[in-house]
């Protein structure tokens, strides 16, 4: 290419254009990062300011690192229980969706059998449905079975949200582990279960952990079903939603921060697997 662009002005023009392009790119990256990060920062500033500062005007751009808002939030009636419920429901969702989803993902990656496409269709179909609406009929079903207003009941709804992801992620995980490894283990005298446990599992574990974290995040963040299905045992999202009209600003912002900060950590933990989750959505 350089030989063709021998004449100097053209080369200089090319060069300045490239530099302009690179500058533009850099500016766009900075701008977009600010677009994502600044709003979160502002919420954190509010959460780390005293209640008076939060309701006061004008606002300062730096937090005063006053724990007034946060301690008010933590000590507010019902918050501690809501936090605990959120964790409990999310943990149950995690266990359910991996426990049910991972075997299905393994079956899809290792076997060819009649009905495989039908199952894949069933899983993909869940995406075309507004799943939180499931909470309406399930509310009735749960009252009949005694599951209403329990963490287990809500975890079941959240599992329908998380299960398709668990199946698809584990499917792509197991597909990435050569079948030959398993076969080699069989020839060396392992049973199918032993081969899976000793050869496949260690390789798949980080990915399974990531999809577990993702399932946890889905449940942790869900609002509609949580608000419909829980009354006494409200999760943090349900609690915040139902107290929107009555709670002071500093409670809202401290609550918002309590929702956001764990989510930041979760996404950081699974960042390597984001593509396994969504890349396969293309097929």
């Amino acid at each position, binding site marked *: 290419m350089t030989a063709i662009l021998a004449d100097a002005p053209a080369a200089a023009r090319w060069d300045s254009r490239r530099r302009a392009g690179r500058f533009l790119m850099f500016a766009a990256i900075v701008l977009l990062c600010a677009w994502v990060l600044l709003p979160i920062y502002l919420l954190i500033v509010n959460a780390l300011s005293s209640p008076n500062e939060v309701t006061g005007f004008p606002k300062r751009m730096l937090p005063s690192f006053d724990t007034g808002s946060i301690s008010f939030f933590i000590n507010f009636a019902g918050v501690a229980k809501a936090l605990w419920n959120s964790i409990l429901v999310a943990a149950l969702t995690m266990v359910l969706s991996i426990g049910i989803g991972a075997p299905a993902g393994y079956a899809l990656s290792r076997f060819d059998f009649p009905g495989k496409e039908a199952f894949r269709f069933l899983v993909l179909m869940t995406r075309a449905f507004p799943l939180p609406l499931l909470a309406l009929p399930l509310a009735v079903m749960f009252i009949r079975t005694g599951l209403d207003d329990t963490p287990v009941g809500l975890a079941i709804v959240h599992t329908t949200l998380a299960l398709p992801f668990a199946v698809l992620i584990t499917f792509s995980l197991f597909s990435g582990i050569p079948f030959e490894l398993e076969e080699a283990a069989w020839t060396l005298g392992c049973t199918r279960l032993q081969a899976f446990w000793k050869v496949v599992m260690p390789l798949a574990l980080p990915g399974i952990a990531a999809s577990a974290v993702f399932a946890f995040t889905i449940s942790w963040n869900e609002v509609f079903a949580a608000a419909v299905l829980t009354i006494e045992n409200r999760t943090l999202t349900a609690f915040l939603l139902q107290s929107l009209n009555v709670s002071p600003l500093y409670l809202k912002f401290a609550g918002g921060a309590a*929702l956001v900060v764990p989510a930041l950590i979760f996404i950081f933990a699974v960042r390597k697997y984001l593509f396994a989750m969504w890349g396969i959505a293309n097929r």
Partner: protein
Amino acid sequence: MTRSKALPYLLLAPATLFLCVFFLYPFVLVAHEAVTRDGAYTFANFRTMAEHWKFPATFWNTMLLAIVVVPLQLVLALTMASIVSRVESGRGAILYIFAIPLGISDLAAGLIWLAIFEQSGFLNTWLVGLGVADQPVMFLGYQSKLSIFVAVVLAEVWRATAIMMVILVAGMGLIPKEYGEAAEVFGASAWKRFTRVTLPLLRPSLQTAIILRVILAFEVFAVVAALGGTNLPVLMGETYHWQFALQDRNVAAAYAMLILAISIGFTLFFLYALRVPKEARP
């Protein structure tokens, strides 16, 4: 051998059973609830829903939000994805930052933008500080529907662009680099390469991203609740209102059916509009 023939079905059984009991069956239930009242089949629930004074505003708010939000997100997601797939150093960090909103609850996103838009919030601080406004403006009051709408649009674009971005980045990774390079050799500008090479080849991912996003757009709920309360009624919010405040499960079910019908309608539309011709499939 017979064991290994049964094995895949044994492995799939729990997931299939779970989805049938907690996904397919409940949708049958809610459909049934929507078309019955006190045990008799009727359209009364839909009529009650449609004749309520709030319904037209609810319906059009939701539609308008989707129409405004989704194209904005598409452009932003394409920009972000192009940047991520072109940048050489720091790709991981940029991708992580762009993907952060993916893990943030819609309620939290609403609260985040509440911190900016509320009357003593940051936007007013800046406006007064710059001398644009003399005193704090009330952006989220019941009389300012337009600024509530703008705030909801911003919060939605901020929150849910990441999901499209990740799908598009994955899709761009599947496009062989040679195509773009060949176009460059023939003198195609960067913009031409994007519109004539990348976009057509990106169609399957675009389809996935748009369908997913449109469905989520009709589920908009907590962002609106946090920013507008009941001043900007949307379909999901009204569903919740009928279920809880008005204690009328049947009308709530009718709302659910409406949301479902709109979602399926748009899914089918985009499946058709963005279909990949058979001869163009790899």
